[in-house]
């Protein structure tokens, strides 16, 4: 019996080894290395010089870093609830009896298949201040035409809009899957009790969707922390850093300015933010499970 257990364990290690090797070499090793680099001054060639906490001290007084942090935070706070809420609304719409439902579903998740760069370029086509479609549509309704490219807040709005176009389908898909897994009897008995649609939504549907919501909050926040392709191509972080986020700032410092130690320090801030958020969510979710 012990022999069999040993054979099983040996097989298990062999099965896990390829994944462990890839993750170890290309995730954990660079992660440890990133910590080391963040204490160095280095351009990426040759040995770096050890400068202790200087990179981190520099972050404190770097207004561009603070701007990028603030933008990342605002982006996350705006995009997460919007894309989850819109995803839920779309899922509720498609969950009901509807002709050609598979067609609608396909159309709604289609943007998921489009690359970030292509999405951003189509975004440029829409938001271009001279030839953009959006402003000609707005003008034809007699509305004012925002300066999507030269005015900071409008540029930020354009990034948010493009992100929503890209993301809502995914959120809808997860909710749709979850809705189809909920027990129809719950709804039936609530209806017998005379609960209105809104009451059923609040007391039956949304509680049943909690695991999906938990998953989506984490996924959407992490995505928002990491938004890169869209910003990089659509606005390049401009005008005047008004759309710059932590990740584009880290890329600029690391690969344009070649100040790689500093870029690694920016990366560490992102890592700490991600870990703090995920741990918090985990705790909150576990806490609520405890009550139930």
């Amino acid at each position, binding site marked *: 019996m012990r022999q069999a257990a040993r054979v099983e364990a040996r097989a298990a*290690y062999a*099965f896990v080894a390829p994944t462990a090797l890839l993750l170890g070499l290309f995730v954990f090793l660079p992660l440890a290395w990133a910590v080391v680099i963040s204490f160095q001054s280095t351009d990426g060639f040759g040995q770096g010089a050890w400068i202790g906490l200087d990179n981190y001290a520099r972050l404190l007084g770097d207004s561009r870093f603070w701007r990028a942090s603030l933008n990342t935070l605002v982006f996350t706070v705006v995009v997460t609830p919007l894309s989850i809420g819109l995803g839920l609304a779309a899922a509720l719409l498609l969950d009901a009896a509807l002709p050609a439902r598979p067609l609608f579903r396909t159309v709604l998740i289609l943007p*998921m298949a489009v690359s970030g760069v292509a999405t951003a370029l189509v975004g440029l*086509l829409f938001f271009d201040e001279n030839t953009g479609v959006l402003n000609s549509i707005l003008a034809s309704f007699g509305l004012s035409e925002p300066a999507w490219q030269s005015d900071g807040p409008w540029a930020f709005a354009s990034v948010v809009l493009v992100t929503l176009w890209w993301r809502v389908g995914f959120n809808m898909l997860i909710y749709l899957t979850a809705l189809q897994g909920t027990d129809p009897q719950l709804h039936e008995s609530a209806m017998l009790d005379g609960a209105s649609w809104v009451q059923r939504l609040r007391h039956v549907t949304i509680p049943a969707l909690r695991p999906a919501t938990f998953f989506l909050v984490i996924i959407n926040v992490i995505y928002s922390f990491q938004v890169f392709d869209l910003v990089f191509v659509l606005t390049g972080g401009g005008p005047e850093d008004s759309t710059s986020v932590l*990740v584009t700032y880290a890329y600029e410092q690391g690969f344009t300015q070649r100040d790689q130690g500093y870029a690694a320090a920016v990366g560490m801030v992102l890592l700490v933010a991600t870990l703090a958020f995920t741990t918090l969510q985990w705790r909150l979710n576990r806490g609520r499970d405890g009550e139930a």
Partner: protein
Amino acid sequence: MKLLRTVAASVVALVLVFPLYWMVVVALSSRRDLLGGRVGVLPSDLTTDNFRRVLEAFPVGTWFGNSVAVSLSVAVLTVVTNLMAGYAFAHLRFRGASPLFVLALGTLVLPVQVIMVALFRLVTELQLYGTYWAVILPTSASALGMFLARQFFLGIPRDLLDAARLDGAGEWRTFSRIVLPNAKPLVAVLFFMSLLSSWNDFAWPLIALKDNELFTLPIGLLYLQGQYGPDYTATMAYALVNVAPMLVLFVIFQRFFVQGFTSSGLR
């Protein structure tokens, strides 16, 4: 009520599909028409001139081939390794299983950008910088498929596996003859997800590649935009070349895609 819902869904669908439709229309219109505001919702003068222009000016065929080679390699490597690991975590008992699993799962929340500088150093150190391998290997290090595979394999009854073992099949045989044939939809989903994310990947290939001969399609798109500026008709023609293959595959595969998420226990 049903009519209202259908109308609402139609409006949402039209808004979401319009950008893709507009990309196609612009790609098929002449630059002069676009600048002159003569391109309407219904395309008038259709031309394939943009495609010709882009194909002549850039090695689009090579970039296409690069994208195919890189994303197929990533998909095969990721799916094979993830399926194996997922099976072990679902059905085999070994010491350290749960800490290893949690550690692997933890990598899912790690932003690539946190490690990009160090990863760049690593591939340079390994003398992979500027090669396909620099893109393929780090991109294949993903645990998402492993997690989905484990969830799926947990649904395969233990009795079935024990029966195979009693017949004297080794773990590898059990896995390849019993488990995999039962997991075809899972394999299809994982393969497609991995293919799609690698095909569309931008940030890392941008760092890892330097010669334009080795560019993948998304990098080429940025390069082309840098050269053409706001020549949207040419850019959209190229974007269409980049986007079309995955859109077609996506429409074919999306049914499995949905099932894949359902079977992963996210309910």
